């Protein structure tokens, strides 16, 4: 893990605490930010970036990350595609993700925006759509992304089988079943990453 990112997360946690004393009282953000740079997230997002890099085959394009949270997925993609020819946009409907994303990953040429993926006017400009928060999203929204995207745009989606959290509304028992649920025209990669106590599933295709 990169110590600079972890240091920034610590400084953000300090700021959230300071803010809680006199302004917005939201101490849970500290836990959420720390969780976002957890080893599990670091590894599962690096897994996606590495596999997509193998399959994508270009050094240029435009990636859209749906449910990008504070930006760890965008950061891992930037590590795989360090050149500026690859545009990376991290989107999330929670406006605080944009605010903290800019701070955590300043200098990594990542754009953050606040928008619900369902409100995106078009996905035609993107060469890849990435979503590692599928367990938090309605299945019909995932299908909608696939239906709206251009034929040659890559998708790389992750979900998991961790059903015990109330925010996990779209878990799947196996990677294969998750892949079948997406009905991609071309499926390039389906696999499982074993985490501590649950499995993370990934599907990459078009």
């Amino acid at each position, binding site marked *: 893990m990169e110590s600079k990112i972890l240091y920034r997360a610590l400084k953000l946690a300090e700021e959230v605490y300071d803010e*809680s004393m006199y302004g917005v*009282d939201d*101490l*849970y953000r500290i836990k*959420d930010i720390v969780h976002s740079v957890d080893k599990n997230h670091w590894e599962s997002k690096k897994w996606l970036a590495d596999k997509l890099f193998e399959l994508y085959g270009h050094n240029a394009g435009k990636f859209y990350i749906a449910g990008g949270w504070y930006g760890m997925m965008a950061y891992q993609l930037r590590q795989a595609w360090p050149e500026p020819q690859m545009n990376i946009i991290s989107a*999330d*409907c*929670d*406006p*605080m993700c944009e605010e903290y994303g800019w701070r955590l990953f300043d200098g990594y040429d990542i754009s953050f925006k*606040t928008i*619900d993926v369902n409100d995106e006017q078009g996905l035609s400009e993107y060469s890849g759509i990435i979503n590692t928060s599928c367990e*938090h999203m*309605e299945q019909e929204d995932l299908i909608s992304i696939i239906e709206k995207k251009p034929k040659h745009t890559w998708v790389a989606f992750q979900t998991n089988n961790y059903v015990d*959290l*109330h*925010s996990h*509304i*779209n878990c799947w028992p196996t990677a294969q079943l998750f892949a079948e649920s997406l009905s991609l025209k071309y499926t390039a990669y389906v696999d499982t990453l074993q985490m501590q106590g649950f499995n993370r599933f990934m599907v990459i295709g078009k």
Partner: protein
Amino acid sequence: MNIICVKFGTKYSSEFVNKLFTDLNRCDNFYCYTDDSNGLDKGIKVIPDMGRPTLKVWWNKLRMFDKNFPLSGKTLFFDLDVKVNNFPKYLNVCWNKITFIDSHWKVGKLYNRLSNYDVKMNSSMITWNADNPDIHKIWDHFNTGFRDYYLRKYKGIDRFIVHEDFEYETFSHQYIQSKKYQPDIDYTPIVTTFEELPVGIKDLI
């Protein structure tokens, strides 16, 4: 007055709904908002799952505050783990405000820690006017870009309502008994709540 309960998931069977319905004298305006109406007594009016956003277990209680929820006027909600002892003809509540149980039995430093978000009210019994636009703001506020964050931050709707600063009233203490914290009382409450206790249908008889 409408009386309603919410049954989602498999924690409580239809037996619990039917028991509540019977204890309330099989009243005409008894509703159950549910994802599975199998086994419910025929006198119960079913409000089927209203769909998106998909919510798990008790978070579905918030849907009752949606302006599109198909109820109008004075409404009384019960959790399925309450025992109705003595339902009065008149409830002394302010219908223009939302009213919850005052968990006055929660004492001690643990409940006041800033970081645990615990609250001294609970939603095992709620009254409100379903036509009140101020109540609809609860559902609207939940369904902003922060919804997923709220689901991570708060363990349930009680904490969401208190810490997102919605105003509420509380019932007279004489209306409620907490089986866990007030095992022995010298009054007859409207309901006994089994909150924080494992409960089977036999406990409610």
